[in-house]
């Protein structure tokens, strides 16, 4: 257990260390959100109608950015061999890495999500649910994304491959999350969408470590 804790701390320090990974994801998120009104229409009525959905789609894209490096750095420098040999199962190693990814990328993006949504014209009363659903969706993005990162491990141009593998799997959380926000905006019951989102993310967190570990084993073997 203490070994996994040490691994968790190492992952956090690697993410926040030089390179400022989370900040790039946040800057990318803000940049994407800024492009939307420029590409469509800056008219507030038109924009506010799509604001929650756009904020959510941009969130999914921003979550992709640092996925490539989730296993690749450890794969390239041989650390993944030693992690696979360690006291904890590879499944636990993968889960810890995804948790750290969620905390360092998903959480900052979730903090930013309500701001982005409101800046795009969403009503301020949506802010709390935007934050909650973005935080929950972040779990799904991290764990499903980790699955893509593990499968793309060792492939050339792995970053593009990760995006191609993972984007279709990002569809359900985007639908559920943006759907819940839309429902709340139009005064309907939002809990159904939120519960489906939570179910998807918990399912991803429970199942994907096994697939990730298999992918990693395949890559290092």
């Amino acid at each position, binding site marked *: 257990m203490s070994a996994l804790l040490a691994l968790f701390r190492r992952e956090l320090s690697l993410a926040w260390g030089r390179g400022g990974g989370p900040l790039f994801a946040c800057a990318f998120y803000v940049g994407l959100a800024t492009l939307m009104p420029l590409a469509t229409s800056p008219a507030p009525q038109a924009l506010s109608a799509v604001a929650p959905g756009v904020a959510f789609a941009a969130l999914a894209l921003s979550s992709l950015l640092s996925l490539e490096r989730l296993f690749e750095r450890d794969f390239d420098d*041989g650390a993944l*061999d*030693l992690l696979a040999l*360690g006291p904890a199962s590879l499944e636990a190693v993968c889960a810890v890495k995804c948790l750290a990814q969620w905390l360092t990328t998903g959480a900052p993006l979730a903090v930013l999500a309500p701001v982005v949504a409101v800046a795009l014209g969403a009503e301020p009363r949506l802010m709390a649910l935007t934050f909650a659903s973005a935080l929950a969706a972040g779990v799904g993005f991290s764990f499903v994304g980790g699955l893509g990162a593990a499968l793309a491990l060792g492939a050339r141009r792995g970053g593009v491959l990760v995006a191609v593998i993972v984007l279709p799997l990002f569809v359900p959380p985007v639908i559920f999350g943006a759907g819940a926000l839309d429902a709340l905006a139009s005064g309907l019951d939002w809990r159904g969408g939120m519960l489906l989102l939570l179910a998807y993310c918990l399912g991803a967190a429970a199942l994907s470590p096994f697939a990730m570990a298999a992918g990693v084993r395949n890559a*290092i*073997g």
Partner: protein
Amino acid sequence: MVIARLAIEGLAVARGGRRLFEGFCLAIEAGQAVALTGANGAGKTSLLRAVAGLLRPEVGTVRFEGPAGPVEAEDARAAGLHLLGHQDGLKATRTAREELAFWTAWTGGDGAGRAVEVLELGPLLDLDVRRLSAGQRRRLALARLVASPRPLWLLDEPLAPLDAARRTLFGELMAAHLAGGGLILAAVHDPLPVAARQVGIGAEA
């Protein structure tokens, strides 16, 4: 975790569709060192990785035995061996101190202080790993072996980047490890600085 004997029986390993070696047998008892020699590409690294369980052999078995009989391979690998490969697993952007602390914790040891002393790492601890020379990095990687004692050392070209004085020092470390009942399986081109049985691998063996 105590490993008293490592037995490799009838091992065959293939990489990229090509069989590197087959029918490889080797037994190492506590206190013994084996120097594995062979041409480039003969499969020395693959053999070490197969023993460590990172690579699945085509046929053959790797068995670990404790003083009281066979040990589960999974347990032996998780707690009984150190693998020191070409790549040291050290992160360029972290300090030597952070990396040593992490790998010591990961391997369940508590002797980081002693490792720093033995391997003369004191002046390097606050440097980023990327500022270290190849030899200094190797010493930092070796520190893990000292910091958390485990019986079986799998070493891949351990001496290559080390200077003459450090080779002698590492020889003393290996001798002490063997004297304490350790086992060493090392892939080498240069002779090991301890008494070791030579075993060839590959076509010419």
